[in-house]
């Protein structure tokens, strides 16, 4: 019984953006169909995974997440190098947790110096993620932007409350901004419009829809991302035709389900594997909804998700 595969008439395409500089720069985006729908469109660039590095020793990480980074968690430069050299990271994301005004509250100059050192120690694209405190991020990210000019960083989160100054700095020093909004397609679109009006070129914008892990509202992020992709590809909504970045690792590894020891609740199985799977499965769900860049932590979770991307994109 012959039948034609019912195909969607796509009218849009996701913009391609180049991340980083030099030989190891990466391009993401460019899709002309829904995620991995390769029977009716193209996905010229596979989704990419950035490995997390914290700029101060992580607190309260479960053993499974710390173990791969033994000996380097107090040195962001060594940590970033380990990610690239030992674990083959294709991108790195430096989480600037030390700058949190509710935490260590490290100053902008000091934090930016650390970013600069990491940026100089590795050649893969570097994401720099602040603390979502508008005043502090403005101060820190502008300093980072200036110190690392030419490195084509990916900086964020840039929100409606702080997009002007950080955006202006990104324009001046040619960095990509992470346009971050709280799980809402209309707010995402509005911020992209604001960034456009400010003068941020399209190829320097990536959307952060705000994500959470399995068990913590991943369905909201999932559906907002699917709606963004639908608007971008099938409804010609140009202001949503940007790649999507998902900062997922920290969301999964902070949950209590990941921290419970094997012997504490045997029904939850092996604690290490459970942590890896909570991260990898959350990442997988987001990939299916349209993630272009995933920020991940555990090398084994990353390895698994890479295999999945490989098998879904090559015939």
């Amino acid at each position, binding site marked *: 019984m012959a039948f034609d595969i019912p195909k969607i008439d796509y009218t849009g395409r996701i913009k391609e953006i180049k991340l980083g500089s030099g030989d190891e720069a990466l391009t993401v985006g460019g899709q002309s169909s829904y995620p991995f729908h390769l029977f009716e469109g193209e996905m010229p660039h596979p989704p990419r995974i950035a490995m997390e590095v914290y700029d101060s020793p992580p607190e309260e990480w479960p053993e499974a997440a710390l173990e791969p980074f033994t000996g380097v968690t107090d040195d962001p430069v060594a940590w970033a190098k380990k990610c690239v050299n030992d674990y083959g990271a294709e991108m790195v994301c430096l989480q600037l947790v030390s700058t949190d005004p509710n935490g260590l509250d490290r100053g902008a100059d000091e934090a930016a110096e650390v970013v600069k050192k990491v940026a100089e120690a590795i050649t893969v694209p570097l994401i720099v993620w602040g603390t979502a405190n508008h005043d502090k991020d403005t101060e820190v990210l502008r300093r980072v932007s200036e110190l690392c000019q030419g490195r084509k960083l990916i900086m964020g989160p840039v929100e409606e409350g702080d997009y002007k100054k950080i955006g202006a700095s990104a324009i001046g020093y040619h960095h990509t901004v992470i346009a971050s909004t709280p799980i809402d397609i209309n707010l995402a679109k509005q911020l992209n419009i604001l960034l456009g009006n400010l003068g941020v070129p399209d190829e320097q914008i990536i959307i952060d829809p705000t994500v959470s892990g399995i068990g913590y509202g991943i369905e909201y992020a*999932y559906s907002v991302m699917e709606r963004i992709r639908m608007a971008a590809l099938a409804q010609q909504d140009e202001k949503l035709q940007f790649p999507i970045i998902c900062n997922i690792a920290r969301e999964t590894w902070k949950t209590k389900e990941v921290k419970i020891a094997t012997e504490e609740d045997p029904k939850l199985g092996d604690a290490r594997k459970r942590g890896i799977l909570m991260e990898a499965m959350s990442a997988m769900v987001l990939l299916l909804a349209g993630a272009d860049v995933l920020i991940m932590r555990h090398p084994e979770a990353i390895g698994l998700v890479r295999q999945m991307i490989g098998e879904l994109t090559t015939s």
Partner: protein
Amino acid sequence: MAITGIEIFKWLPKTNCGECGVPTCLAFAMSLAAGKMELAACPYVSEEAKAKLEEASAPPIRPVSIGVGDRALKVGGETVMFRHEKRFENPPGLAMLISDTMVAAEVDRRLERFKELEYERVGMTLRPELLALKADSGDDAKFVALVTKVEQASDASIILMSEKADILAAGLSACAQRKPLLYAATKENLDQVGHLARQNSCPLAAKAASLEELAQLTDRLTQSGIKDIVIDSGARSLRQAFTDQLVIRRAALLKKFRPLGFPSIVFPAEMTDDPMKEALIAATFVAKYGGIIVMSDFQGESLFPLLVERMNIFTDPQRPLATTEGIYEIGGLSEESPVLLTCNFSLTYFIVSGEVENSKVPGYLLVKDTEGLSVMTAWAAGKFSADVIAPFIKKCGITDRVKHRKLIIPGYIAAESGGLEEELPGWEIMVGPREGAHIPAYLKSWRP
């Protein structure tokens, strides 16, 4: 419902007799289209119209039931490609494989795990539904022994797996009253296995080597009177199996292509030897259209996240999950422990309870029923204001558990603190953080 009220109206008597219970035929047609009433309520509709309407209004993906009793499973019945378009209806069944070549002790361990592995979350019990019993030995007697054992020891819904009609018949004889899914009818055995399914009124899986062949098989089965069909496109590479799921769902929903309008069955168990990767493949099919997902084994570390993912994806986007109202105890509590208030939107509950746990400061979390609305939405709707919070605080029993009278309220309802102090004499109302992430810092510096 695949047909509009106006289309249905054309086929009705248009007498407006009212005997169906609504005043006009048009109103009746609208109720039919919305799935609120049955066509049978109209005593005058013609046989011809009935046949046409049944054909046209049959769900584009047939709902299929497998098994009986507590673990009975209904799959299919989906109406949308994306959950935000309406909702996904029936979560995929999760099946654990047991082969008749496994030694008895291993079978026992699997049955035990199947029984044990269930989890409570937001007042729901999360657990798998199915055991897939596979005839690998080729020996009738061995298969029957396995089926009999499982039938007696487990309340699971059962899938019987063999491509040999006589072996399936033997297995079925040991569990027919459980209405197992027969897997599988193929182009080689279609008539015999179809006969078996008809005779025992069991659901039947059809397996083919391509979607075209699959459509032919289901067409033949449908013509022979079998309606409850589950479909396997035969693909065992991730990319092809994933693509097939998309195409099947689209063909059924967008093209109303009946031969593929059935729930699917997928086999992560046969797609990799790595259990971790198998879990990711299963996670893919939970989101993208698997009807039944067969795993080589269940282990807590992978089953738990899968079950939670399944619950998340199949949550109705218009009806957020709610947590039961009450006092939740976190950590080793004392009479001096802090008391925090939040709403019963389950996501808020998870985040707040998780952050209280992260703070390492034991605390009482009071969850007020706000009909599943988040703090701000509930507050704006008048469901989280002083006049409804105060009676809850008084009757929930927290006064028997702590000596102090200090209540931490969410930062977003700071405006209610004055009203609460009035309504709750003797209580000090403290305004907590707005964001969950700031709870640990707040609690660490909190003193009774």
